Each structure stands twice: as C-alpha cells, then as structure tokens.
C-alpha cells in the first residue's frame, strides 16, 4: 500500500480507511471518521477535498482545533478524500501525467457515488479547498455530482485569478521549469543543499522573514511564483514545523492547465473533447446553471495567491446566474491556506462554515438521487 497513513489524533471517533481506486486505475485515499456511538446515525456527511500537493492531513492537524473536530462536534460525519494530487499518494512524484480533468471526471464523482452508497438518504455536503474546489466546480457543472446539500469552496472556485507579477513568474517561469524538471520538491531537507533545485530555494529565500527553506518556498514565494500561501503568523508553531509533511512535491506537468485556466479567468478543460473527456464542459462558467445546491465561497482577505478570486466568482455568478444561491464570506486577516490550517481557523472560518451547513442540514429538497 502506497498511501501514507493519515496524521490524526482520534478522540471519541473512529477512523475507517477505505481502499479506493478510481476507475482509470489511479489509487486514491478515502476515509470516514465516525463519532463513537453514532452507529445508525442520521449525521449528514461532509466530504472534504484538499488542495494540490497538500493532503487530508490539513483537515486533521492534531495541534490545532481542526475542521474534522469541529464537524464531529457539530454533528456531522467527515469523509476525507485524497484525490490524486495528494502528497499522501505517490502520483505527484511519479512520471505519469494527470490533469484536473481526471480529478473532476473520476476522483470526485466516484468518491461521491461511493459515499452516497454508504450513507443512503443522508445529506452530503462538500467542503473543498483550492484546486479541490476548482476540480469540484468542473464536476458540478458537468452534472456528475448532482444533489449535493451544499458546497463550501475555499480560496478559489470558478474564476481563478492571480496578480500580474505571479502571472509572469508562474506562466513564464513555470514554462522554463516544466521542460527541465518533472517535479519541484519543497522539502529542503530531502533534496539537500547541493541539488538542482537550490536556485529555486535561493530565489524563494530573497527577503524572507523566516529561516525555514520549506516555509520560504511556500510562504514567501509559493513555488517561486512570488505569491504567498499563508499569513505566517496565523500558523501554530507546530504546524509551521510540519510544513514539509503537509505539502509535498509539485508536479510541473499540471502548470499548463493552470495557466490555461488562469489566463481565461475561468475553469476550462485541459483535454480535447471526445469520448472520454467530452462529459466535462469546455468551460465550467458557461454551465454554472447546472449548480443545484447552495454555494458558500470563502476567502481570506489577504489571499496572496488567488487574490479576490472568490469575491469575483461571487459577483460573476450572482450577475450571470441570479437564480443560484451563492454567498461570499471574507475572513479578515487570513491568506490562502490558513483558513484551513491556521491556529484560529476554528473561530474565524469553521464557525461560519458550520453555520452554513446547519442552515442547509434539513432545509431544501434533495435534487437528483
């Protein structure tokens, strides 16, 4: 088994690890965390989707009050999917290409279908972060995951947008990078000082406040793009020291797809149409009318990678699709990752998230089946 074990401290709950493989053969990670004594439960399920190069570990940080704790206490049943971009899985470090099309077409819909099979009539929510949310938006607009009870998208959703400077470095620098290296690791201890990646680490260390090279490449430079993944002071010290464990190697072959989406400011398909990928829409935004559940967009006010993408997404969706139930919540003083892994995330983010879930816990009819 190649899946790295989940880093979790269970207190009054049981972890059920489910062997799970996507229909195209990719190994994924799926687990259910059940509150003890909640057998035959009526708890609504919440599927959590991490971002690229992170993993479900971000929802179970033992050192802070994490989202899984909060959901369990609020009466929900968390399900964690490690889609193929997870650092608990080997895909990012292999040399087999995947795109977010695969995530939207296989990983998410199949996990949702499996969970549905297990929970029966209970309601199912999805809380998705970053590229998990982008991929989810494509699954939703393709009509592959109908009838969700509600969706929370953190950081970015259907309208990815970065700053001019990040654009330049991500799109041009990324181009140089991807033709030379298949991967960009972030764990400096693993690659060592005399590796070919040292120039990127050196670039990331320019005018950095923190001495940790892994923190520099994530916080000060976001893989050399000059963006920033989190507000440094929002992390617990233990989380900070575990960054290399929480974030894995970046596969460079996803960069062109990211570039295509960012330049179009909308979620677009990578693969040409045809039998396999034709089920995904060419542009998710054109089919946003297929979204059949309430959506809560969350973003840190200081998101320094996707900026105000989610506010933009809110504006676009409410203007172009006024029938949708969309809301936008800005978390003051937070960046991109810290609304999930920050030490105050439970107070500032999970509280409002749970309130949204509670609102739709019973209300509204379940669409589809």
């Amino acid at each position: 088994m190649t899946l790295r074990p989940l880093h979790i401290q269970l207190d009054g709950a049981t972890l059920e690890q489910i062997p799970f493989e996507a229909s195209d053969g990719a190994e994924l990670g799926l687990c259910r965390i059940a509150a003890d004594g909640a057998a035959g439960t009526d708890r609504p399920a919440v599927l959590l989707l991490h971002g690229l190069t992170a993993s479900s570990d971000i929802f179970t940080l033992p050192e802070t009050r994490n989202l899984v704790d909060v959901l369990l206490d609020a009466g929900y049943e968390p399900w964690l999917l490690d889609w193929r971009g997870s650092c608990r899985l080997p895909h990012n470090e292999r040399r087999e290409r995947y795109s977010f099309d695969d995530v939207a077409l296989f990983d998410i819909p199949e996990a949702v279908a499996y969970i549905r099979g297990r929970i029966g009539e209970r309601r199912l929510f999805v809380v998705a972060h970053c590229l998990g949310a982008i991929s989810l938006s494509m699954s939703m607009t393709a009509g592959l995951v109908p009838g969700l009870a509600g969706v929370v998208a953190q950081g970015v959703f259907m309208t990815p947008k970065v700053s001019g400077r990040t654009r330049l470095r991500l799109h041009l620098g990324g181009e140089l990078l991807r033709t030379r290296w298949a991967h960009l690791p972030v764990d400096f201890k693993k690659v060592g000082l005399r590796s070919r990646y040292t120039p990127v680490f050196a670039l990331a260390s320019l005018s950095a406040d923190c001495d940790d090279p892994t923190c520099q490449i994530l916080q000060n430079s976001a893989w050399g793009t000059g963006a920033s993944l989190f507000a440094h002071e929002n992390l617990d010290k233990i989380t900070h020291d575990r960054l290399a464990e929480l974030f894995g190697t970046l596969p460079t072959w996803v960069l062109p797809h990211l570039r295509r989406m960012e330049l179009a400011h909308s979620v677009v398909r990578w693969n040409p149409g045809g039998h396999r990928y034709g089920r995904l829409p060419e542009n998710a935004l054109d089919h946003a009318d297929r979204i059949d559940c309430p959506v809560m967009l969350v973003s840190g006010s200081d998101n320094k990678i996707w900026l105000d993408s989610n506010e933009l997404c809110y504006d676009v969706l409410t203007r172009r699709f006024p029938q949708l139930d969309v809301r936008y919540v800005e978390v003051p003083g937070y960046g991109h990752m810290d609304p999930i892994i920050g030490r105050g995330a439970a107070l500032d983010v999970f509280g409002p998230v749970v309130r949204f879930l509670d609102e739709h816990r019973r209300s509204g009819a379940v669409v589809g089946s």
Partner: protein
Amino acid sequence: MREPDVKGPDGPGSSGRRHEEELVESGGRGAAAVAALLARFDKPGPATPPAATGGAGGAWSLDGLASAIASKAARFLHGAPVDAETDLFEAGATSVDAVELVAALDRELDVRLSLDDVFADARPRRLAQRWLRTTGQPALATAPTAAPVDEEPPQSDDNDDLALITADLARADRLPWCGDPDPAPPRRILLTGATGFLGSHMLFDLLRHSRAHLVCLVRADSAQAAEQRLAEALTSFALPWSAEVKRRITVLVGDIRQPRLGLSDDRWAALAQELDSIVNVAAAVDFLRGYHSLRRTNVLGALTLAELAMTGPAKPLHHISSVAVFNELGVTSMGEDDPVAHVDRLAAGYDKAKWAAEAALRRARERGLTVTFLRPGGIVGHTRTGAYNGHDISSGYMSVISRYRTAPAMRYLNVAPVDWVSRIATAVVCEPSAWGQNYHLTGRANTLPELVRDMALGGMNVQVLGWDDWLADFLSRMERDPVPELEFLARVLRNPAAQKLCEATLLGPAATSERTDAFIARHKLPPATRYDAKAQLKNYERMARDGLVVLPRREDPPHLWFPETMRGKLGPVDGSPDTRCAFALTLSIASMYQLTEHRTIHVSGTVTCPRLHKDPLTVEDGEIWVRPDEGIPLRHGTDHPLLRYRLALRDSDGQAWWLEGWKTARARTDYWKQARTLTVEAGREGEPASLSGVMKVPGKSYRREQIDGIRVNPALSLQEQRTAKLTWLLWFTQQMVQGLAEPTLRAGADLLDLRRDAIDRDKDRFQAKLKKLDKDRERLT
C-alpha cells in the same frame, strides 16, 4: 453664530451652557437634531410636579428639587430606580437622554441646566445644587444628612475632583499584599469590556493566539441576556459569533462598578482561585462626563480587579490605560516610562479617571501586584473589516475631514487600527516576560502632511485650518446644517473641558514606544505601520455606509472629465445598420477611488440617432465599466470584454430608452481598432433591443479629446491637476493594455502548451542512454 470660547472666564460649562440654551430655545432654525428630539418630547407628558414644592424659579428646597429631577430622569431610564444620589449615566442614560432631560427640566421645572452640567455630574442632588447655586439660593437649604455613597469628602465644585481622586487613591492602600505570579502563559483569563470595541477584538485575539479559556464579565440581568449582549456586540464589530467561540468562553454576569464585581462571595472566591490572568479593557469612554461620573467604572473597577488579582494565587493584571494620562497642554514627551501629566492640570473627567486608575494601580504595584499598563492612543477602524467605534473622536475627525474637506492644523494624530492594538496587547498578555511594564500602543503617529496627502490620493483635497478656525468652522457648519452622525463630536467640541482634551491630543508630541517596538521585534509581531490611505479604505467604506463619512459621489463636481465622440451606423436588430448616428459624450470620474474600487466612469451627453428620435437624446444616467468582471469572457472563447457602456436615454418627447455597448478584445493584431469599436444595442425602456450596430471613436479625435482634452477640477492646484491627469492616463492605459493583451496571451499559451515537458525529454534521454549502452556493449563484444 458663536465664537469658540476655549477659556470661558466663568469656568467650565459657561459657553456650552449658553449654546445649549440657544439650541433648546431657538428650537427651529439650524438645530434640526435637537429640535427633532424636543418634538418627540413635546407629546403630552406627565403633569408637572406639584407647584407647592417650588415653581418658576421659586423657592426650591434642595431635596425637593433633587427628587423632582430624579423623577423626571426616571422616565428615560426605563424603570430603573432613580433617587437623588443615582448617577444617571451609571443607571444607563445615554447622551441623547441627557439632551432630553435638559429640555424637560427647562420646560417643566424651569430649571436651566446645561448639558455640560449633566455630563459633569449626573446625580440629581448635584444637579439641584448646581442650579440653586446658579440662582443664588443657599444650596444646602435642607442639609442632607444622609451620608453620600462611598464616604466621599465634602465637595466644593472645582476641587471636588481632586479630593475625590485623593480618596480613591487611598483605597489602593487597603489592598492585600501579594507575591509574583507564576510566569506561565495564561490558561484561564478574566476579560472585562468584551462587549466594547477593543475588548471584543481582544477576545478574539486571545482565543486565537493562546489556548486559554476566557471568562468574560458582562453586565446583564441574566446569563442568557449576557450571552446575547456579547453576541450582538461581536456581530456589530464584524466578528463571527459561533459555537466555536462559545466553547472557549464563559460568560459571567457581573458589574465592574460593584464591589467584588457584584458577585456572590463564593463566586468571587472561586474566581480568585481558578483565574491566572486578568485583562481589564472595560472603561467608560466619554469625554463629556465628569470624574465623578466615570470613576466607578474606570477607577474603582480597576481597583476591584486588583483586589481579585491579589486574592488567592497572585495573577497579573493587564490594564488598558490610555495616552490620555499625558493629556496636559504643554507636555514635552510621551515615553513609556516618562512621568505622566499633573492631575490638577488635566481638564476632562476622562483624563482624570484614567490618570487615577494608573496612579492607584501603581500603588498596588508597590504592594506586589504585577500590573501591566497598555496605553493606546486613538483606536481607529479595523484594516480588514473596517469595523470602528462610532463614538471615537479620531473617527469623528476623519468624518469631518472627509465631509467638509477641512482639517485642523494638528501635529500628530496618535492613532492605530484596532486589529494592531489588539494583537500587540494580546501578545503582551500571553508573554510572561513582558508583564508588569508600561507599553504604548499608539502605533505610528500620522502627521498632518501625510494625512493631507492620503486624502489627496483619494481625490479629496483638504484645506488645513488653525485649530481655532477649524473648530469655529466645524461648529458653525453643524449649526447651519446639523449632521446627526456628528452630533456627538460637536457636543464634545462645544464642551470646554473636552475641547482642551482634543486640543492637547492634536497639538501634543507623538507618543514614543521603545519598549513596545522592542517587544514586537523580539516576537516577530506585525510592526506598527502608519494608518494610511490603504489601511483606512475599509474603514472609510464602512463609515460611508453608515453615513458617517461622505465619499466622492456622482453628484459632486467631477474630479476629471473629457469629451468622447463616436460615429457609426445603427439599424434594426435583424437588419443591416443603415442609419448614421453620433454620440457626443462627456466621460467623468468623481475620484480615483471610484476607478480603483469600482472601475467605473460616469457618462453624460447626447446621442443623435434618427432611428431613435429626430432630436438628440439626452443621457440621463450612464456608466462605463472598465474590464467588467476582470474581463472574464461572456461565453467560452478568447473574446474578452474590455468596456461596457450602459446608458439610460430620454428623447425630447419624454420617452425613455436604454443603450448598451461592448468593446471587446480579440486575439487579433488590430488593437487600435478594438480599443475604439463599440458594439451597440438599444431599445425602449423595459423592452428588448430594437436597434443594433457598431459605433467607433474616430481615430483623429482620440488624442485631441481623450488626452489633450482632459480637464481637471479647477479648484485643485496646478500640480494636483497634472497629477490627477497623469494618474488617470496611467491607470486607463494599464487597464486597456492588460485587457487587449489577454486574448493574445491565451493564443500564445496555446502554442506553448505544445512544447514537450520534462517527462518526455527525460524519456528521450533515457532512450539515448540505452542506445549508447547497447553500442558500447557491441563494441566490447
């Protein structure tokens, strides 16, 4: 109009009193706010008191008058018991109630007190004394035998406060002795003032940055009401109230003004045992009320907390003080360990109360208490949420400055945003090595030129006036055209004592903060930054929503404008464009803020199109949106919207029309043409489009009109005009270049996507290596 009377010859209160009387008596003109209050009050009230006890300026006895005043006041207090010794503000009266009370006393008892009298000491007996003294009657006609509460010394007006302060300070000597607290991060903290502006933000920061459980002291009738009050306060400051917050706090019903916080002995004893830190944020912040009115919250409350800290295991007490303790005109330096002001030279009751609290706690320090003084200056709006304290003087100044575009010639504005103040204060509370010292949380003071520049950057050029002129200007404007949201500031600035406080604040030196700065550097906390235009933005927007400040609007004279001519042909939607039409528009902006935040341009002018009407149509309302929705394509493809025109037109017969036009960027090289071509649709109001076509800005007119033709508000200086013009051109050019380049970039990226990436290259390299190995093997064999 009234000249400002900073130093009234007949003592504090005279000018303010005269003014209030004018307001109350003149009623109608220029005093709409007060008049409105009075009108509300004009409803038939309870019958006037029995004439036997007094009457129009007649012989009131002190007791009689005091109880008459108390019964009038009781009306505003919704059933709270009021007697001659009740401080009306302590009993819950607001400033508005005070205005109503003054009017009621005048009308019904013919007792003319000023608002300042009420603010200075709002006990009915003292009000009665004041009035009797003013009218020359012996104040102690029927000498009160009842001992006043708290064994106060006999009072004789101006020296009252000093005597009372002396007595209050002596209370510190009754505190127990104690040792040093355990130097560990706190686990259970008592927080007072959690429903206040700073307190609510500190509540969150303490939860975020420590693992402590918080006990919040909240004044209410029941635990449920207390929780409700806290939840409402947090929500009003844009802080999230949720189950996650609830699980880490305990709401404790109590009152800081009461001995032992109004708690039972058991509760008090338990609290003394279980707490390991006390954070005192609670304070009555009111620049009008006198020392007497503020002391129970600000001084006695602090002493009660000191007692709690010194009872049982020793606990540190972190006291939010204020730089107001330096508020003496002529003070030369404001360092953290510099001597504070002379209390006999402090004018406002608030300054005295803050001074006395510190002095009393310093005495407690000598008895072993570890007490930290955290002294903020003005605490202004949150840099991210914009949440602010509507009754903060600094917010009031900002409001006046933006509304009237005049600023007082201040030296420094010692203000810091609430998020920073709260964060640093929290860090001190959580760091044992930092306890027991004085810290200035004044941030980085704003200087006058910086403030003026910030305003100019936002397109609001302000005029600087001397303090006296500014004050006179502001008060006269308020009299001519009262603004309800600014009434509190006007009231403060009409009060001589509060006026001195404000003047001292603005003309004093910048507070220095070496210890705080060193602490921040040591713990890598966010350094103090100036509260500049960017930091203020959210605050301004929020204040604008609440009507406290006025952002530049469409109705204002434009900041910058220029003409735009367009020619082209329109025709029926399904036919070919056949009718020559022309737009003669004027494009204008009210401020740069409008551009950067909303990316819109206002449009006026005329549209000539015989298909719509034989006469030119007038643009009633028009707006151009630059790169709408960041230029996200309307449908999948590489066509990115560049500009959207939306005009509401009216023809000479009074018929309404709509017109919508799009300029679109495409992946083609005719950028110049794309930038000038507008695809138009138009129709009758409420109906679908009946006309469509293409309009174009003639290439020849472009430079003449849109560059050389730019006109800037002539009220600005020449330099400001040039800057405005250049800023506009730079901003618009940048937007257009970005918008026009996007489709081309996408086409280019599609080409780049064809390049092979490292996986393929490495595969080739691997193949080559294999081949070489084979060759070598062949050679060897």
